[in-house]
């Protein structure tokens, strides 16, 4: 406390000297007079056509739609598979994300980072039937044949305890979602 007080005092004593070293926070604009004012003003033409070159640089707002013609061989080198055009007769539907990916996400609980959850979003229709089918699919892959799930009917989400990312993706792709 004493040290702080002293420094504050010393700074106040030195303050007149600080005036010499003070920084200019605003740029000092010197009024430069042109040598020949006739040559400084260059005529400018506004061109709306050239804006297409600017638009090439701008990032896209939404992802482009799924290409039908160019990509016929699936899966793509990255492993992406599109949704089937006609879905199965299941009483539920799972949409795709905004970049046409499967809406399956991993949640890791802080701070231990040991509890893992698999979350499936965008489930429409009969979410309870979806949960049952999913549990039946995952049971052989689980350690003790028990799959703990949570269903949020309002948020249209299903959460599974454990890391089942690949199995859930297989399940969804097999149903054509």
């Amino acid at each position, binding site marked *: 406390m004493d040290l702080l007080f002293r420094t504050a005092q010393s700074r106040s004593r030195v303050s007149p000297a600080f005036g010499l070293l003070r*920084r*200019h926070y605003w*740029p*000092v604009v010197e009024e430069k007079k042109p040598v020949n004012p006739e040559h400084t003003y260059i005529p400018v033409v506004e061109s709306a056509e050239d804006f297409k070159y600017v638009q090439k640089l701008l*990032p*896209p*707002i*939404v*992802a482009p739609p799924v290409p039908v013609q160019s990509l016929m061989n699936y899966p793509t080198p990255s492993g992406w598979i599109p949704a089937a055009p006609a879905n199965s007769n299941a009483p*539920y*539907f799972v*949409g795709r994300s*905004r*970049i046409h990916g499967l809406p399956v996400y991993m949640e890791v609980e802080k701070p231990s980072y040991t509890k893992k959850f698999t979350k499936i979003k965008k489930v*429409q*229709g009969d979410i309870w039937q979806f949960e049952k089918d999913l549990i039946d699919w995952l049971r052989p892959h689980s350690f003790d044949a028990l799959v703990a799930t949570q269903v949020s009917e*309002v948020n*249209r989400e299903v959460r599974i305890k454990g890391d089942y990312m690949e199995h859930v993706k297989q399940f969804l792709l097999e149903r054509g979602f």
Partner: protein
Amino acid sequence: MFGLISPLLRSTVTKQWTKVLNPAQGPIPSGFLSSLGTIPSRLQSSESKTGLITERNYRFPPSGFVPSREAWVESLETIEDKKVGLVPLHPEVFAEFPRIDVIHTNIKWQTLYKHVDYSFARTRAEMPGGGRKPWPQKKSGRARHGSIRSPLWKGGGKAKGPRGPKTYFYLFHADMRSKGLKAVLSAKLAQDDIHIVDSFESLPSEDPKFLDALTAKRNWGLSVLFVDDTDFMPKNIALACHRRPGFTLMPVYGLNCYSMLKHETLVLTLAALNKIEERILTFDRRLKIRDFRDNTRPPVKKI
């Protein structure tokens, strides 16, 4: 003072919304309103109202399990309800789950962000006097005190009181705002409180009694929110709603949860419906790319 100012402010705002497009006043200067270019197309669509409207050209067509909702397209030409068409509504906007918690957070934000708390109390340091010790420390038989402005004293300063004008402004998540709009629109449609009209141009009379009779006949209630694509309105509806409490004209960019809940009925034009759906669907599909230009700062000039 504030009671006097607020009605004036309100009148200016309504004036801004209800700018009358009068060709007798001469040509409107270019650049006056950015949405001016949408007039000719809107007039054409309002003129060609023969036949039922049944199809929509979606940029993002509905895909999924939830079927699209439907609504009648009405006309303001007659007092009786005259159907012009049947329009499908996108399920991602009009068939969402009416999340009450999301609506509540939106309403809370709308009430709080413009709230300023002006309450203020002086501390002992800010009050006059109190520098002198009221009586000696000892031998008087009274309690020891150092200042008459101590917070223990009556008429003393306030310890930890409200300090000055305090703003409650905060920015609400854009995702939650979009969700709130969808929740309110879905709830309103489920309650049969949304009506879609072809255009506001079709209102034949500027008499407020005609609009009163129309709303009474169609059971629209005492308060109606008219939403259009543009922020200037046709002359008849502007004059009919002028100085009428409960009848509000609003452009699409002013649509919000609070106003939709405050008014009993929401009346959308077809152009407004298209714009609302397109905006919300595009927003939900937008790529969350972080623009590299956000990190760059202009170079600091050393002087």
